[in-house]
């Protein structure tokens, strides 16, 4: 196998995946004087290419032909709802949309940029403190991250400054300084940029939520509200609310992406080399199995090549990181029957449903105006901000209007109110009315981890390189459905206060399995989680493999359970956190950072 592969000149660090985590780690390692090769299986991409106006303003190419997304013809996953089923291939894009190419999901994302709530980082401990250990349902693998908000704060701050994040603080250094999220923890500094303007629907939602007694705040958005120069010296332009964020390379250079915010500097660094169209097959290990020696990949010409390296940093998308660990034999694979092993354990998703509010037909909601990260939220039912005791479920959900720009094909597909036909004149009337006069409110809830929800390798289907596909075993559970229904029910009064003429509350239904055909979100998490116990985590709290100390794995794979927030802010902070400990400790003394 690897003996046949061409061996390249060794480097200090090989980074697998060219998204946010990979770009941050490569930047940090070159700053530390290390030679870095970044391998990206997709094509090279830049805003000047994919993002150029007006060609990029093409909804068909962006959101329906998936220009910036994973090429499923080469590799996908299989999915089933439970272990008694045969998992079947995810053949067409639908429920989630993983990225591909330089920039990764960081190029096609929307831009919502959160810090993880302190309680979510120690959710198991917090739930036991408040409600007792018996409160945790049977089969729920509730865990702590092993890292606290106070430890991560400098790295949340750094990520926001690199991303040029717009938002309004509530507390800085313990002092209330603004109208930000009253449930958010204290910060060491303000957001680098003031919040984006409210679009009309967000403005209405802010007023109505306050009237009902909730605590609305501006979503933290990595869409620049003003011109900005980040600490690396790269410039962003002000967001003009064009509505082409999710699925697009921002032509205004306003949405943060690795391509805009980090790679322009990294590409010029003499210690850095980017190799696109290189698909990593596995991490190589020495005869002890405890040390990685590099990676083997298929290059752009289809040649199999081995790149020796002192350190391997996996920074592919969440489930690709897990699959690479399984394919490489790094960490013990999870066995749900024996409840042993860690790689594939605690696979989680995001528990999102969308409600629709119809306003007076004289009011134009202009849903095509938007910024991917912009909007207004309330957190009164997120995290541990409310008493779960009488409710009997774990987890919560922020509620928001995040009008990212609804374009014409999406509007046509969404159609009219429930019960409206999908075509013909009745569809047309309902769809046009809905497009012009409605707005959407999301409950963007957490999904907990369960013993029988996991990732492993599929026994049947293979990718274009002959390797087994990853298999997802996933379904919605009673706890999460009840949480969603409780929170969505609160949207009714907000809609009433907005002057709704009609409301559709989008709730999860009991007994309705996870449906791979309907887009939900790409916020997949877990599967190779961080923690303090090698029996229940694949990575220590520094994102280092417990088993192979020169392998670090950065991504949402590290989340022990889901959260109500979007993952990118946490992934970026974890990358800077891991990089800090690699730079200050590991490089001088290679070995396990936690015992």
């Amino acid at each position, binding site marked *: 196998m690897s003996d046949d592969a061409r061996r390249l000149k060794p480097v200090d660090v090989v980074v697998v995946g060219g998204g946010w985590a990979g770009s941050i780690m490569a930047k940090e390692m070159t700053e530390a004087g290390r030679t870095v090769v970044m391998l990206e299986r997709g094509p090279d991409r830049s805003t000047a290419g994919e993002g150029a106006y007006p060609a990029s303003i093409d909804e068909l190419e962006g959101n329906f032909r998936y220009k910036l997304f994973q090429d499923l013809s080469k*590799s996908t996953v299989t999915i089933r709802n439970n272990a008694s089923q045969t998992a079947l291939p995810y053949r067409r894009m639908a429920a989630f949309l993983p990225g591909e190419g330089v920039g990764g999901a960081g190029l096609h994302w929307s831009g919502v940029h959160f810090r993880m709530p302190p309680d979510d980082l120690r959710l198991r401990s917090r739930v036991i403190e408040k409600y007792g250990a018996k409160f945790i349902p049977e089969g729920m693998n509730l865990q702590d991250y092993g890292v606290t908000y106070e430890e991560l704060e400098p790295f949340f701050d750094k990520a926001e400054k690199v991303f040029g994040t717009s938002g309004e603080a509530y507390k800085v250094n313990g002092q209330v300084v603004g109208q930000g999220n009253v449930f958010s923890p204290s910060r060491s500094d303000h957001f680098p940029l003031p919040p984006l303007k409210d679009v009309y629907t967000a403005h209405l939602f802010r007023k109505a939520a306050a009237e009902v007694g909730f605590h609305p705040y501006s979503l933290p958005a990595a869409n620049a509200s003003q011109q900005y120069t980040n600490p690396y010296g790269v410039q962003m332009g002000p967001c003009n609310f064009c509505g082409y964020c999710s699925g697009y390379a921002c032509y205004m250079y306003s949405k943060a992406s690795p391509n805009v915010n980090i790679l322009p500097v990294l590409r010029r660094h003499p210690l850095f080399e980017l190799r696109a169209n290189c698909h990593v097959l596995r991490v190589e290990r020495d005869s002890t199995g405890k040390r990685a020696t590099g990676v083997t990949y298929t290059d752009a010409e289809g040649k199999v090549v081995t790149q020796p390296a002192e350190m391997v940093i996996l920074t592919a998308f969440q489930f690709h990181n897990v699959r690479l660990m399984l394919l490489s034999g790094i960490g013990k694979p999870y066995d749900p029957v024996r409840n042993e092993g860690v790689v594939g354990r605690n696979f989680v998703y995001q528990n999102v449903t969308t409600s629709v509010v119809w306003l007076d037909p004289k009011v134009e909601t202009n849903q095509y105006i938007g910024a991917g990260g912009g909007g207004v939220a309330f957190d009164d039912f997120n995290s541990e901000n409310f008493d779960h005791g009488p409710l009997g479920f774990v987890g919560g959900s922020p509620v928001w209007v995040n009008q990212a720009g609804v374009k014409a094909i999406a509007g046509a597909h969404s159609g009219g109110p429930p019960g409206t036909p999908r075509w013909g004149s009745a569809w047309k009337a309902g769809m046009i009315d809905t497009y012009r006069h409605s707005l959407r409110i999301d409950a963007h809830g957490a999904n907990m981890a369960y013993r029988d929800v996991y990732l492993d390798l599929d026994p049947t289907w293979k990718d274009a390189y002959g390797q087994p596909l990853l298999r997802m075993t996933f379904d919605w559970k009673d706890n999460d459905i009840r949480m969603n229904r409780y929170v969505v029910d609160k949207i009714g009064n907000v809609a009433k206060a907005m002057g709704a003429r009609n409301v559709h509350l989008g709730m999860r239904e009991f007994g309705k399995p996870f449906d791979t*055909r309907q887009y939900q979100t790409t916020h997949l998490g877990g599967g190779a989680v961080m923690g303090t116990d090698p029996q229940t985590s694949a990575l220590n709290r520094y994102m280092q493999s417990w088993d192979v100390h020169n392998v670090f794995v950065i991504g949402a794979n590290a989340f022990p359970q889901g959260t109500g927030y979007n993952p990118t802010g946490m992934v970026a902070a974890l990358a800077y956190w891991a990089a800090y400990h690699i730079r200050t400790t590991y490089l001088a003394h290679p070995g396990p950072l936690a015992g």
Partner: protein
Amino acid sequence: MQGLAGVAACSTVSGTGAAAPPRPYTPVFFNAAEWNFLLAACDRLIPADANGPGALALNVPRFIDQQMTMPYAQGAQWYMAAPFVQGPDNLGYQLPYPPRDLYRHGIAGMNAHAATRHARPFAALAPDVQDDLLRAAEGGKLVFGDVPSAAFFDQLLANVMEGAFSDPIHGGNTGLGGWAMLGFPGARADFMDWVDRYGVHYPLGSVSITGETA
């Protein structure tokens, strides 16, 4: 930066201007019988009415025919490795057919059903009879060999929506008529000065990637 959308708008002054008369279109992928079905079905899925133009005026059939020549229609973006095992609907599409094959099987199946029940091809049926057949296909009540009718119908409906509402550069949405009925500004993509004009419709008409306006 704010001027970028304006540049596109200005370029239309010397552009196409008034709607050109529809040019006859010869399909590249669909044969005559298939084309007749497609014209008839599109006319039912998005009929012309008081709310705006229908799929025929928007050249949706042309859009679909042109899409059939793209790698997309050959399943280039779908995972098409065997084995093909059928399972619960919620685990997604599991047929070995890319879009082109779905159209070939689906249209033949629709016409066969029309011939069996009504002794005519679909295109020759009365509109309400066509609607009944389309509803039956949508509800999965017909079977075209090993293609469930809902799989074909969903493919057709998805492409019809794309054709009516995508940028005209792809062959449909003629005269930006799809966007005009939604009040969607298309490639304007600059609302810096309208983001806080609450509840009032954006005053400029739609613009396409090539600078055509409506």
